[in-house]
Each structure stands twice: as C-alpha cells, then as structure tokens.
C-alpha cells in the first residue's frame, strides 16, 4: 500500500508553470510596422505579405471601433496561415478587446438551436466597459505558506499574510487562489491587490521596505509604498464584460430555484432586449462604453444556409461585432442546399464581405516557419536537417513537416544527441506516413482491407 502511494507521488508534477505549446502559440502579433507595412519575419509571422497588410487595415478598423457588422473572409488553401492571421489579429488587439474564436461546426448542439449558438457567439464578442464598485484587498505580502498533502494528491491549503502600515491579517487560501498566486509569481515583499468579486490578482510592485534586499530584481521592478489604512477597501474599478455575460447574470433563475439551475441554456429574447436597452441607457449616461470586438469563425463552410441567412440579418445590427471567417474550400455546395457557390457561402453574404486571400508559402518562407516552430518547441536542428525538412514541407505539407519536429527531436534525444540531424528526420519520415504516402499505400493494398467490396458505392456517395 505504502509503495503504491510513493509511486503516485512521483507521477504528480507541478504543471501550473508549464505553458503548453499549441499549433499557433508562436504567434504574438501581425508583425506590422507603424505604417502597417508587414515585416518579412516578425512576431512569429512569415510571408503572406498582402494578406497581413489587409489584416492590418482591418485591425485599424476594429481599433477605431466605429464600424460595426463588417465581415471579412480569409480564403486560402489548407496550411497557408489563415488561422495564424486571425490569431495575430487577436494578439494585436490585446486582452481588453473581446475576441471569440469558434469553429463552424461548434454551433451544432442538442442543447440549443443554431441561431442561439450564433447569437451567443456574437454577444460574446461585444464588450461593455463599465465602472463598478467592488471590494478589493490591497496589501503587502508578508508570507505565503502552502501545504501540500503528503500523498501528493488532493486539495492544497495555504495561508497568506498581508499587511498595511496599520494592520495585518491572515487569509486562508483555496486551490484556485494558490494556483493564481503561483502563476503571478507572488512572493513576500510584493504589493498586490485581489479583486474580491473576480479573484483577479494584480501585482503593483515591490515594497520600498524591501528595496535593500539583495534580490535579483530586474530593471523593470517597480517599488511602491506599503498601502495605508484598512486591507479591504471599496474601489471603483473599470471592468470589461461581454454582453453575453450580462445576459447570463440577468437570466439566472432567482430565489431558491437558482440552486437547481446549472447551465443557462437558451436565453430569452425578452432578457436580451432588456439588456440592450439597459446598455444603451448606460451609454447615454456616460456610465459605460461599448467595445466592439471580433468574432472569428473558422471552417465557415460548415455553417448551413439558415446560419448564413441569420448572419446576413445579424450583421446589420448596430451592436454587431466585426466577423472574421476562414475557409479552405473552393467552389462547393452550400450546406443544407443543392446549390454550389464560391467558398460554400451564398452570394448575397459574400457580397457583404471583404475577401482576403492567402497563397501557398514559398520554400524560403517554409524554412523560416519551421525555424520558428523549432524554437517554439525547444528543439535544436542542424542546417542540413532543416533543409531536408523544408523539402518535405514543400513536397507534402507544412503541417506534416511541423509534426516531424518534435518527433525527430525525441528520436535524437534517444541517441543522446542535443541536435536533430538529417538521420533523425529521415527516421521519422519513414516511421510516420504523410497523407500522400498513406493514400498510395491504401491503393496498393486495398484488396486486403475489410469491406473492400463496398468500395465503389461508398466512394460515389462521398464524391457526390
């Protein structure tokens, strides 16, 4: 029994500090200079110059916030950086502008109708900046204690001691707060505020009384006075909430029934209307400001004709956000009809959009992207290996080549090398098939797979 517990302890690793690497986590912006000219390689973006310049113009439009309900379509072949451009726009807008990202197929749910899902997505993309009085805790950290349970699993408990010039209080910490304190890297001597409504922690700086410590402080460390008076204060803070959040708050069942309502499900139209008039009222009184954001719908060809006609109407609303859509389809059937249309989008909606197209990457650009991804995935690669990988990307696909980076680095680590060599790339190239070779393989050995006699019919169905 004891040995089991000991084995378990080893498995538990602190994962809060490791940031996981996603497909687009190397993108930090659009890589434009002040005059909106795209730099060739910047902020994780490579090539695609004209599309990025176009995105920069769109970005300016969003930042001005005056124009509502415009739609932009990013069209291009698979793996040409459509999602990357959208992510770049999101990064460049910063955290204060709402950016909702969804895939076209996300709207098909049994919980609520397609139009409700779209309406929620649209309302999630409109922010309201409003002054609200909340209770905050503001003080200098005296001590943080975190106790881990001996088994390594279970909830952590902790204590946080905060002080001002006049007083000192001990707070009990739950799991969530401990994690966010660790994420913010709060330590003794920091002056912090905790928003009691949202639990958001912000570090104001280091306390002056700690200025003499021989801490390795960076040049950007700010020194602040220890706060005065009471630890808990009421302060007016400016929050940005989305209209959807306001909807949810106001549509919750009141009274004891609230105990039984978990999900909000569909939100009644009356509630939405009420909120709209309320928001308009706040705006007139100068209490609130509308922040139109961005709704990004990836794989937009997955929407069907009803959604498109709904979008047509929704975009005319003056509260509508800027909608960016991306598709990799050419002329194809509109879902839910038998008609064909460019990008699988009806002509009347296409007419309301500005279309930005992306083109396939050149060899040089592919190499740059692979280099950036190598850095992002923490993998060192020799120049020769990178050239080989670029060739693979050119002949198969960029996504496949990116898959090979981490796999190759794992292979190289097995032979105790710190650098990925050509042999490692060759090895994983032979281990993992790309889509072309897989198709080739299937064609050769079709007869030996199951159900191959049905092949003709099923192929026809999927083609038609």
């Amino acid at each position: 029994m004891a040995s089991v517990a000991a084995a378990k302890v080893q498995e538990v690793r602190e994962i809060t500090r490791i940031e996981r690497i996603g497909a687009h986590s190397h993108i930090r912006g659009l890589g434009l200079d002040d005059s909106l000219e795209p730099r060739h390689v910047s902020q994780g973006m490579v090539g695609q110059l004209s599309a990025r310049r176009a995105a920069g113009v769109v970005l300016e439009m969003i930042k001005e916030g005056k124009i509502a309900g415009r739609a932009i379509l990013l069209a291009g072949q698979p793996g040409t950086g459509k999602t990357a451009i959208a992510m770049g726009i999101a990064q460049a807008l910063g955290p204060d502008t709402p950016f909702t990202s969804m895939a076209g197929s996300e709207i098909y749910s049994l919980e609520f109708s397609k139009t409700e899902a779209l309406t929620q997505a649209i309302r999630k993309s409109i922010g309201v900046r409003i002054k609200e009085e909340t209770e905050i805790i503001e003080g200098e950290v005296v001590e943080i204690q975190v106790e881990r349970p001996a088994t390594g699993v279970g909830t952590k408990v902790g204590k946080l001691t905060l002080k001002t010039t006049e007083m000192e209080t001990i707070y009990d910490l739950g799991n969530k707060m401990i994690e966010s304190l660790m994420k913010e890297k709060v330590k003794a001597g920091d002056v912090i505020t905790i928003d009691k409504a949202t639990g958001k922690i912000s570090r104001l700086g280091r306390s002056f009384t700690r200025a003499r410590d021989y801490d390795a402080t960076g040049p950007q460390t700010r020194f602040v006075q220890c706060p005065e008076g009471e630890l808990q204060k009421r302060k007016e803070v400016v929050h940005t909430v989305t209209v959807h959040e306001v909807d949810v708050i106001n549509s919750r069942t009141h009274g004891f029934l609230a105990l039984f309502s978990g999900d909000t499900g569909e939100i009644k139209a009356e509630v939405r209307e009420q909120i709209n008039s309320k928001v308009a009222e706040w705006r007139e009184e100068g209490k609130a400001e509308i922040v139109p954001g961005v709704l990004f719908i990836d794989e937009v060809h997955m929407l069907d004709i009803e959604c498109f006609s709904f979008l047509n109407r929704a975009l005319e609303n003056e509260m509508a956000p800027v909608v960016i859509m991306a598709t990799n389809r050419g002329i194809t059937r509109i879902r839910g009809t038998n008609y064909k249309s460019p990008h699988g989008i009806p002509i009347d909606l296409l007419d309301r959009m500005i279309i930005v197209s992306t083109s396939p990457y050149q060899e040089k650009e592919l190499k740059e992207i692979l280099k950036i991804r190598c850095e992002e995935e923490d993998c060192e690669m020799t120049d020769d290996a990178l050239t080989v990988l670029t060739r693979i990307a050119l002949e198969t696909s960029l996504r496949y080549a990116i898959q090979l980076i981490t796999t190759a680095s794992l292979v190289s680590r097995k032979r105790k090398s710190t650098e990925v060599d050509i042999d490692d790339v060759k090895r994983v190239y032979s281990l993992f098939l790309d889509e072309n070779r897989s198709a080739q393989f299937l064609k050769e050995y079709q007869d030996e797979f199951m159900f191959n006699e049905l092949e003709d019919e099923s192929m026809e169905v999927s083609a038609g």
Partner: protein
Amino acid sequence: MAQTWLEKIKKSEKIGLIQDGKRKVHYRFREGEEMVEEYSMDTDVLVRRAWRKRGTLGADGIWEVEIGDPEPNSSNFESLGIKESNSAPFVARRITKSNLEWRIRNLPYSLDVYTVTAEPENRCITVRTSNKKYFKKLSVPDLERAGLLPEQGRIKFTHQHNTLIITYQKPSEVIQLEKKILEEVKAVKVAHDGDASKCNPS
C-alpha cells in the same frame, strides 16, 4: 437627513411577519435595494438588520449584515479561493436601549493597545492598535441617518474575552428617530406564522 430616512422607510414596500418571538420586516426600496429588520417582541429593540443591493450589472448581491452577528458562510470561498482566517478579527454590531455597540471579536491584545477616536471629518469611528495589528474604520449609519456626526465624548470601550467592546451613547435625536420608525414597523400588517415547530413536514 432625518426626514429623508423616515420618508424612505415610509415609501418602501413592507412585508411583516412574527416568528420565533421576533417581529420581522422586509423592506423593498425603489432602487432595487432590500432591507430586513428583526425586532425583539419583548423589548422592541432591533436585533438584526441586513441589506442587499443589486450589482451594477443586475446580479443579486449577497446579504450584508449591518446589525447582529455576521452570516457564518457569506463568503464564496469555493469559487474565489480566499477568505479571512477563522482567527481574524470581525465586527458584530448591536443596538441596546441606550447605546450603539460594536464587538470586535478575536482581538487578543490587552486594553492599553487600542485607541478609539471619533473622526467627524470622515463620519466614522476609527480603531487603531499601537502594535499595528488591527485597524478599522467603523461607519455609524444610525448617526448618519439622523444627520449627526460622531462625538468623542460619547465613546467608551472595554476589553474582555478576546473581545473589544465599544459603546456609543445614543444621542436623543437617534432615539427619537428610532421611535418613529418603530411606529411605522408596528403599523405593518403581520402574518402570524406561528412558530416553526407547528409545521409538520411529511
């Protein structure tokens, strides 16, 4: 000021109830505010008063206790992950026939550590400790409602059983106002709920 408070009470929607030997009144004001008061039937002294205000965005707030013991689990520790430790001092307010009272529990320091001063310019009474462990500005809503400022001469404080007890002698204006409010309260129609023991849950 005194008039406006009385007016506010008069204009509010009131629901009364007599239960467990207490007269309970629920007030609903125009701005979405709610207040609950409980008076002892024997002495007609207010034993509990709590407020609930709507948030700016329309959410229901939590009940804030002005008079009486604080709610035991009013903090949302589960969702927020932070709350004051059990050993942290907390304030409970009381009203007696002639005094306003504050009891600050969990204060272990001896009496000479504390200074309690009236600060009319901030409309509050301030508690300080010479060892810099505790500091609190106590607002006095009852005085504010009567349009008065706190006076140093009326404050007395003692310390026993880990509790600092501050008493403030009620000015006659406050007593007058309370009388008028009590008249209003007694005029509210009450539903006799009887006591809870009669209820027969199946």
